[in-house]
């Protein structure tokens, strides 16, 4: 068991190292000079003032040092927990900007992933048994899973927010409120959360429903199910065993889905101007903010690797064959 997890951890560390290096490289491939963009956008009257700003920011962000030195600085500061200063935020520490945005993104992603996974699998399993449900869930599922996140977000925003005024158009919480521990603020927060959540939930739900439905049907056709049926076991018992076996690819799929859903949440947050990480990434790209982009991508890398690691643990807990294999491996 320890060797299994040790090996896993080692793989993850290598992945992290490579991903972090690529993460550091990518913003630097963007054309243009971020300091020039920052200075030009401020429309300074006097050229001496502009020159001073250029010097100040170049020195502040360490962009005048050669690339290998910048790379080493990146790792040194990363190991100190310092993700650098944001150009877009005029020198605000990147970690502060990310921490302000993370709660919103997690509030969207975690419920959306877990609820859609649970609901999708339940519906899929049900659909595998009932023909009439199968005839409705399957086409709806296909349509939903093929829908681009952004398009669904726009449709929901137009219908439910603009036309029917059921939910707010944009933002994390109302512009007339400040964050306080009141019922009013909490309901407002939830109201702003519903539409972005739905945009993510619905698309993922479709995918899981179809996947589970196919897996259940496959399991119900397998040898052990037929054997159990021939022994006279009740349908519910067969279904229970089939469900457990069908879950395993779904758990793997969850791990794979995590990376995709982060991209989906990015566009959803942009449509709703929801102040999460996706919105911040968009702003960072527009403003050529190397450090903010690096920091957010690093955060996402760590998050996805961590979630994958958790799914690995869950897999071990759920599948007895893995445990037997591990014991066999260490014996």
């Amino acid at each position: 068991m320890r060797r299994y997890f040790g090996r896993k951890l080692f793989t993850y560390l290598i992945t992290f190292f490579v991903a972090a290096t690529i993460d550091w490289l990518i913003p630097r491939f963007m054309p243009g000079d971020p300091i020039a963009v920052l200075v030009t956008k401020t429309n300074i009257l006097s050229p001496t003032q502009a020159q001073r700003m250029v010097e100040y920011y170049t020195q502040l962000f360490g962009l005048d040092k050669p690339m290998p030195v910048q790379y080493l600085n990146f790792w040194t500061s990363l190991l100190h927990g310092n993700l650098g200063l944001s150009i877009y935020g005029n020198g605000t520490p990147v970690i502060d900007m990310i921490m302000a945005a993370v709660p919103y993104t997690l509030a969207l992603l975690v419920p959306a992933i877990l609820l859609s996974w649970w609901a999708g699998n339940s519906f899929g399993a049900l659909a595998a048994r009932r023909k009439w449900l199968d005839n409705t869930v399957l086409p709806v599922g296909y349509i939903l899973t093929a829908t681009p996140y952004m398009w669904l977000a726009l449709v929901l925003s137009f219908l439910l927010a603009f036309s029917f005024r059921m939910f707010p158009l944009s933002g994390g919480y109302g512009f007339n409120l400040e964050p306080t521990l009141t019922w009013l603020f909490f309901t407002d927060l939830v109201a702003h959360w519903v539409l972005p959540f739905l945009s993510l939930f619905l698309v993922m739900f479709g995918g899981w429903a179809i996947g589970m439905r196919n897996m259940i049907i496959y399991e119900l056709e397998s040898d052990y199910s037929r054997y159990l049926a021939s022994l006279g076991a009740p349908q519910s018992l067969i279904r229970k065993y089939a469900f457990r076996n069908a879950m395993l690819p779904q758990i793997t799929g969850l791990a794979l889905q995590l990376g995709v859903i982060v991209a989906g949440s990015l566009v959803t947050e942009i449509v709703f101007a929801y102040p999460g990480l996706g919105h911040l990434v968009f702003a960072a790209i527009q403003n050529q903010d190397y450090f903010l982009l690096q920091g957010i991508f690093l955060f996402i890398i760590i998050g996805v690797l961590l979630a994958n690691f958790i799914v690995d643990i869950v897999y071990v807990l759920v599948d007895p064959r893995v445990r037997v294999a591990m014991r066999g491996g260490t014996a």
Partner: protein
Amino acid sequence: MQLGKTRVVALLAVVAIAASACGGSTATPTVAAPGATTGATPAPVATPATTPAAAAVNGTLPPTDTTVYPRAETLYTSGKQWGAPSTWNPFDSNMAMGVVGLQYETLFLYDPIKDAYTPWLASGGSWDSAKTTYTINVRQGVKWSDGTALTAADVAFSLNIYQNAALGSNLFTIVDKVVASGNNVVVTFKGTPAYQEFSSALYNDPIVPAAIWTAKNDANILKFLNQGGVGSGPYTYKTAAQDRMVWVKNPTWWATAALSLTVKPTYVVDIVNSSNNAALGELLSGGLDLDNNYLPGIAQIVNGGYGVTTYFAAAPYMLGGNTAWLVPNTKKAPLNDPAFRRALAEAIDPNNVVVKDYGNIVAKADPTGLLPVWSKYIDTAQVTSLGATFDATKAKADLAAAGYKLGSDGFVTNKDGTAIKLNLEVPDGWSDWMEAETLIAKDAAAAGININPTHPAYATVVNDRNGTATAAPTFDLVINNDVQIGNTPWVYYDYIFRQPQIAAGAARNRNYEQYDNAAAWALVQQLDKTPVEDTATMKTICSQLQKIQLTDEPIIPLWYNGEWSQVNNSVWTNWPSSTTNQVQPATWNGYWQMGAIYMLTNLKPVTKS
């Protein structure tokens, strides 16, 4: 089954641990403003504010509970803030909306429509008879928001702060000494005063409390974020988040007693720009009162019965805030030939852009490029005789006369026979300019000039236009509108003719076309040293500058880019308009001190019948 249950419990435990480790509480996120804590620590259950509207209007009572802003007392704006508010330092041009104007104020206001200066924190100012010393009379009875008095020492300090090299100001290349004396501040100059530049400082430089800023006046002055600072203006800092900036009324504002002025909204909430369609949606549904974004199709909306109005009720709907110029790189052939540039100016019809692209919400620029507020400095007779007007046939004739032969593909070639293909660059995403450049290219093609419209990323355009530390500017043509309206056309002539050329790189922000004309620059410096009251001399110098500009065409004026401003009249009314309330309707930097502050004092809440 025992084992199954254990497994499920373990599963749940893992999920719970993961959730708590990753995200922590998601119920009430602490929205920390970048860089510092907001101080909005969760309070016990707060009751919604019921500040009487009357008290808000008179400004006598400070708001009591303040975490919910009543709609009738709140002004929602958008359009200035292109990113999260990250600094409230009035010397940092990236400062949040309203830092200078709502929180900090200037010595004078300048009204470009009336061309008049209003004493503000100064009660007056005068030159001595030799016009070499300027005395500022500091207004008495003004208090900072922390209760201390604003004195001449504060004013002197606020001007002397520009000696700090970190601010990169050139004020002390023209100013010698700033000394407080009694209730006055005396400014002496180096040599003949540069009256134009100094007059710009009088209405642009913020006055800050010396008690707080003396300690910050070192090389790190721009690192001081000044969140929640102390100012003299009508609003103080309330809160800020990634998507908003909130100001709350300062009940002890000096102008209420001294000038009988009160700002009507108790709260001003500026919303960070996300996208134009989000802004439009909010404006139409009443979530925004004032929007200073460019919204395409606003002409139809104004006439569509949505309660949305603009400064002018009909075309051009918007005031002109700056001129959009076509900037050629005069160091590259054939753009180094004035005859070619002239032909180019004659080939382009800005009316095409005005009508087809903007739907008449902008106006075609005068051939001198000077904004309408400076029309008195335009030598109209000279413009009629020398100015380039749209005439494709004449453009073709001028090209031929200058030696550019028409090739078989319908485009003219260089004098040595090589093909001419000029890249016109605008930033990607600036949809109105992207459309404009295709129209310009079409016009030019009709006259035989091959222009290729491109739209690279903003950063690339800036790089090509400015050059870098190692490479000269590589652009052919760009459209640019950097310099805004001001109190004197000197700002435009400085922009066009500045010498010496600023080194290529990020700090380059004048004379993008790299035009070298020593005589023109001498005239610009002469203009700078002309008193702002001496309009006669200014007119003469401007006329000479216009002659150079109209014959050489170093840059070509296209249209007056609008001071985009559309308002929703459902909650607040009596907005600026050309008929009643003629003040600047923009929340952009630099506009509050050009009279936009009156926009807030003139507002009237809509009373629900």
